[in-house]
Every structure is written in C-alpha cells, then in structure tokens.
C-alpha cells in the first residue's frame, strides 16, 4: 500500500467513515500489508491512551456542586436584551422578510408603473417642394405631436425678393 493519500484512507477506515465496499477493499489491503497494520495498531493504541487519560481526569472531578452553580448562574443571568432579541429575530426571520419585501416591491412596480408611452421625438422629415422657379419650398413633417401624431409645416421662401422679409 502506498503512503500519503492511503494514510488518509486508513484514517477514514479506522474511523468507520468509508462506504462498505471501499472499507472491504481497504481491509483486504491492510491484511496484506504489515506497515498498514502497524499504523492502524498505532492509531488504536493512541485512541486508548487519550480515552484513558480523559476518563481519569473526569473521574477526578467533583460534579456534586455543578447543578447548584448552573442554577445560580441561570437565576443571575439578565434577560435577553432588546438588541439580542432583535438580532436573533433578524437572523431568523431577516432573510424571509427581505425576500418578501423584494418580491412585494417587484409586484408593486409591475402593477403601478405608468403605461409605456414612447418619449416625444424631435425627429423631422424634411422634403423639398417644387413651388416654381422663384421660390423654394420645404416640407417639415414632425412626428409625435398634434392630434394625428404628426405636424406638417410647409415653408415657402420667395427667392425673387432677396433681402426682404
């Protein structure tokens, strides 16, 4: 069995975290590899030591007065302040409220927004008008105004009286 990544498989096997099929394969590899068996044995030994040390420490502790201390601590605890309660409420319901508010805002916007009207346009169509040799005619057609939606202006300038208005 190769090391490195396999040690992590060994650890997962040791901790019972492998799926059954993978665990079976690892077990077979362990049985065929003395080094792997040694590492598993070392992990078992260390687990035993840690448990034993912890059990000794817990056995030495005196829990007789613990409940009284906890009870006294509970009685002396101030009630949750407004800030704490608000913080908890916001953490618990804040996302829901924010989402609902956003959804309501979208619905309101869609329902209430004014009907779409195209913006007034300043575009004009300019055409020349044949009004004879002594005048110049120009037709200006402006869209988006007037009752019919467009305004037409016909401009005629007499060229024979130049300089006079």
């Amino acid at each position, binding site marked *: 069995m190769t090391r490195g990544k396999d040690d992590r498989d060994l650890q997962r096997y040791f901790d019972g975290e492998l799926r059954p099929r993978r665990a079976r394969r690892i077990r077979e590899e362990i049985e065929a590899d003395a080094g792997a068996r040694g590492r598993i044995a070392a992990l078992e030994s260390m687990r035993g030591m*840690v448990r034993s040390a912890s059990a000794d420490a817990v056995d030495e502790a005196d829990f007789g007065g613990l409940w009284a201390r906890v009870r006294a601590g509970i009685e002396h605890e101030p009630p949750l302040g407004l800030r704490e309660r608000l913080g908890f409420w916001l953490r618990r319901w804040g996302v829901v409220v924010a989402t609902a508010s956003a959804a309501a805002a979208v619905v309101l916007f869609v329902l209430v927004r004014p009907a779409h009207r195209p913006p007034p346009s300043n575009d004009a169509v300019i055409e020349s008008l044949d009004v004879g040799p002594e005048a110049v005619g120009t037709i200006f057609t402006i869209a988006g105004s007037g009752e019919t939606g467009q305004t037409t202006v016909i401009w005629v300038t007499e060229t024979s009286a130049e300089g006079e208005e």
Partner: protein
Amino acid sequence: MTTEDNTLVAQARAGDERAFQQLVERYQRKVYGVAFGMLHDPEDAMDVTQEAFIRVHRYLDRFQGTSSFFTWLYRITVNLCIDHIRREGKAQTVDYDDSVAHAGAETSQLMPWSADGNPARSMDRKQLRQAIDRALATLSPKHRAVILMREVEGLSYAEMAEVMQCSKGTIMSRLFHARRRMQVALLDALEDKNKTAA
C-alpha cells in the same frame, strides 16, 4: 436527537427545571471531559462546563432541533474553550491553515509503533496521562477539539463538522494532522523517559 433528549429539551423549554437538571446530569461528564482536554485545568474546565449549561438554558428557545442536542452542546463548549484559550493568551500554537496546501503534506504520514516504541506499553498510567496532556498541549485549540471529539466522544466526521461549523474535508485534514503531531509528541515523551531511565 434521542427521544429522551427531545422530551427533556421540550420540557425544559416549557420551564421544567427538573428536566433541565436531568440534561445537565446526563451531559456534565462529557462536557467536562472535552473542556478539560482543551484547557488542562480542572477549575477552568469546571467553569466552562458551568457556563456551557447556562448558555444552553439561555438559548434553549433558539435550539431548532435540526442538529442533535449534544452536537449543539459541544459546539457551545468548544467555542467557550477556544474563547478562554484566546482570552488567557494561552494559544501558543498557530492553527493549521486548512485552506493552504502545505508543501510536502503528503510526506506527513501516520507512524506505526514498534513494541519498544509504543508509549502505551512503556509507561505507567500516570506517566501516560502526563504524556497525553503534554501532547495535547502541543496542538492548536481546533486540533485539540477534533482529537477529543473523535477519540473520546466518538463523534462522526459529519457531527464534528457541525460542531466546528466547517466542512468534513476540513475535519479530516485537522484530525489527520492532529494525530500525526500527537504521535510525534508521544514518541518524544517516550524518548525523554528512556533517556531519564538510562
């Protein structure tokens, strides 16, 4: 959450002091065991144990039951221990940066122990306990927490991930490196013992 825990939590929430006392008595040894393993001081461990249960009582209404009661309790306990260590300035080791792939991490390997090189066979119970305490002290608070939760309390990777609010991958990585460091520390302790005896 076990049915019995479920019942006791519901009763405690409704103001049944006796139910809450039963929860305390049910979990006090486990909580103390984790706290002592993290802090190595009986008084500090008992203070943290007391505070953990006071917090549980204070925030019992917020316990939604999506996790088990004991993983929630352990989370409170581990966080209190880490806060205590940081407050006391006792964090002398740097937390392993789980997000950084350490160069040569693959060479960090689990070690087999020979019959002669097995601390469990070579030390008496008292020496072993001292060696374990010293070895745990070489670990960062988070590494200490995963060793204790796994080896003593038997929590699964998923349960530990919930306690420490991290991914299972992070838990696996911390546990692997914590075990490796513990092995090195225990073998060093054995070497010291052999040198003293010689």
